[in-house]
């Protein structure tokens, strides 16, 4: 969706302000939101793409005015209500009023570190051959889905070339809203900075994105 999350190339946000000796978390509640979001994702009630979709579909003004973990909290509450794991009234009171819904699994302390150090790969298998090969000229399609996508606006309609075939992965555009993993070929696509930004592009500069096959057409 063309939401506030799609920030590449936007003006007016001011300078980057690094924080010396920045802590991992800035408040105790951030620790709990971080961990709750990961642990609720682990239940299988939704997936990572669904979480990203929930965050980026906050109203743009609210998204931009919220701190990072405030966005995570709002999205988590939205997902709990959408899946029926908790009602809005329960979230307001903090007390269960409805029976719990079954979840596929609950994250336990035992073995947690090993599970997270092993990771949760999103690579998949497919029988379909890759449509593109390194060096192929491609054009990013000028598409504007109203649902989740990972093709940023600043490359849509632009011409580049394939620099790497990354493999086959869960397709976020369907996975995000429960329409299946649809394993899809993923490519690294390079665009010249001046193709993207015209004369203001950094001379000789390159920007790459990771683009799923349906985002691309031959150029």
């Amino acid at each position, binding site marked *: 969706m063309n939401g506030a999350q799609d920030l590449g190339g936007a003006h007016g946000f001011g*300078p980057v302000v690094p924080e010396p000796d920045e802590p991992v978390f800035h408040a*105790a509640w951030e620790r709990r939101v971080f961990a*709750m979001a990961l*642990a609720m994702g682990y239940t299988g009630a939704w997936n990572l793409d669904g979480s990203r979709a929930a965050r980026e579909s906050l109203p743009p003004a609210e998204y931009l005015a919220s701190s990072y973990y405030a966005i995570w909290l709002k999205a988590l509450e939205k997902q709990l209500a959408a899946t029926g794991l908790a009602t809005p009234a329960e979230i307001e009171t903090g007390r269960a009023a409805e029976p719990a819904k079954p979840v596929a699994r609950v994250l336990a302390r035992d073995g947690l570190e090993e599970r997270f150090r*092993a990771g949760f790969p999103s690579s998949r298998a497919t029988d379909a051959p890759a449509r593109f090969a390194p060096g192929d000229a491609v054009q990013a399609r000028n598409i504007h889905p109203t649902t989740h996508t990972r093709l940023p606006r600043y490359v849509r309609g632009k011409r580049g070339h394939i620099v790497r075939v990354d493999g086959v992965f869960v397709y976020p555009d369907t996975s995000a809203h429960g329409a299946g993993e649809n394993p899809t070929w993923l490519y690294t696509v390079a665009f010249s900075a001046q193709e993207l930004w015209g004369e203001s592009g950094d001379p000789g500069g390159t920007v790459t994105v990771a683009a799923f096959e349906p985002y691309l057409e031959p150029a």
Partner: protein
Amino acid sequence: MSHHHADHDHVHHGSDLSPVEARVRALESLLTEKGYLDPAALDALVELYETKVGPHLGARVVARAWVDPAFRARLLAEATPAIAELGIGGRGGEHMVVVENTPETHNLVVCTLCSCYPWPVLGLPPVWYKAPPYRARAVIDPRGVLAEFGVTLPETTRITVWDSTAETRYMVLPLRPAGTEGFSEEALAALVTRDAMIGTGLPKALPVEPVEMPV
């Protein structure tokens, strides 16, 4: 959304909790009561990412690549198994790609759409990496962003920006600083900053120009 209930509690119980703190505490209590969460698992997750996983791990990978050409070749060809040789890997880094700085090319990593970042080698991202200024400008004005980090590259150095738009996660392999011949792997790792592995910085002790040192 309404924070009335939390505010109400705040007033009546004389608690020091802010509205967001009260809301988060209530949510954890609810999800625990419903059996979806084990608070001890939350504690373990926080401990893992606050105290164990961080950029010191990525620095070990970089230092190994600087001293071991065969490892460096494996790392650049297929990063995830190479990094796993050091016992490093996991969530947010299941599909790693390492991009190498050269005298001709400097690499810079961003996620314009959210906050994708190679957790197993760098830990959780800093606020600036997740905030709009960096996400907006890294792709359109990388030299301007680098200048704000105190990094000025020669005009002839080309910049490649890697926008993390899928589950592939990028780490920059910086140039080994001149004058570090004979350094141990541990001493080299100490020169590798988090920002050097994002591309917004350079390793410590990198002279602007190589200096001929008398022996």
